[in-house]
């Protein structure tokens, strides 16, 4: 019948051992955490292995966990094996002061813009990316807006009555 989460997990632990942690299966999708330096090796293995064949990178994004000191940014990869119809997710945590992660553009061309978007929103520096510039925001922006510490609304409006919107309390700071 093909690939089950057990087989994938066994193959991965056989190859990478305890560099992969945090094994879970929320809603049936196998999820694990890999160390920052081996993210390309894991993806290469998942791509090349004759049985695993995760040849489709569905999604690449990041999450900001401001309370995890030392691992505030997580880059999340979703891979899909089209032939056996299996999806897998893995995360790579990195520090916010030095958020360097190896770029997956050489493996999947689709990672190009997804990494630019992640850089634009969170400031994750993808090492080896051909063109890491801002993509969705204005080029002159000097902060990374999706991080939790920054507010949603623009701050220059003078016509909104903060009292009516319950915004008398200052924005919760995470650091």
């Amino acid at each position: 019948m093909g690939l089950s989460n057990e087989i994938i997990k066994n193959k991965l632990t056989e190859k990478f051992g305890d560099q992969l942690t945090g094994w879970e299966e929320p809603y049936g999708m196998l999820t694990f955490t890999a160390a920052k330096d081996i993210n390309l090796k894991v993806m290469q293995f998942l791509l090349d292995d004759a049985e695993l064949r995760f040849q489709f990178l569905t999604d690449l994004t990041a999450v900001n966990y401001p309370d995890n000191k030392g691992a505030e940014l997580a880059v999340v990869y979703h891979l899909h094996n089209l032939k056996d119809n299996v999806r897998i997710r893995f995360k790579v945590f990195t520090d916010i002061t030095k958020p360097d992660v190896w770029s997956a553009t050489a493996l999947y061309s689709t990672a190009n813009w997804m990494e630019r978007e992640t850089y634009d929103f969170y400031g994750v520096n993808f090492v080896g990316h051909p063109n890491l510039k801002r993509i969705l925001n204005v080029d002159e922006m000097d902060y990374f807006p999706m991080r939790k510490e920054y507010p949603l609304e623009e701050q220059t409006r003078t016509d909104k009555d903060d009292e009516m919107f319950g915004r008398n309390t200052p924005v919760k700071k995470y650091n």
Partner: protein
Amino acid sequence: MARPVQYNIHQKPLETPYTLGEAPEGVKGEGFFATKLSDVVGLARKNSIWPLPFATSCCGIEFMALMASHYDLARFGSERVSFSPRQCDLLMVMGTISKKMAPVLRQVYLQMAEPRWVLAMGACACSGGIFDSYSVLQGIDQVIPVDVYVPGCPPRPEAVLDGFIRIQELVGKESIRRRSSDQYKELLAGYGIQ
């Protein structure tokens, strides 16, 4: 193509017939009609407005529905939509304008020749809409002067036609000297436009 186009199953007859062409006030005689120049010019201008559809998002699709045969905009004289700002009269801004797009919008407005009018269609163009975020311009009247605002998200094509008819009224009643008046110059100076 003869296909009966009637989806409305509860028909209501028109109460008062709508007429488009009403002659301006003037002196009539055998073979002549004397009136003010601004009325004649206004009448000609208002029935042949060439819009520039500056469509960015969802309101653009409602504009496409407006241009199609069901809610035909060409009935009101806008048979030819021009996509070049140098050839258009009315700038219809449809959709969200973000801060990245605002300089482009201003550039397009500056390229238009007088007399020019602006119609802001949709909640996003009028005031930022539901997107109260760091990247959306909260209303295009922060960068260009607007004549008519059509609210809605998206406004129904009938609402846009209502806005268009108001533009027509503005065009028809405009004084010839308006564009060189001090008040207008002050308005443009307020936006930083010479």
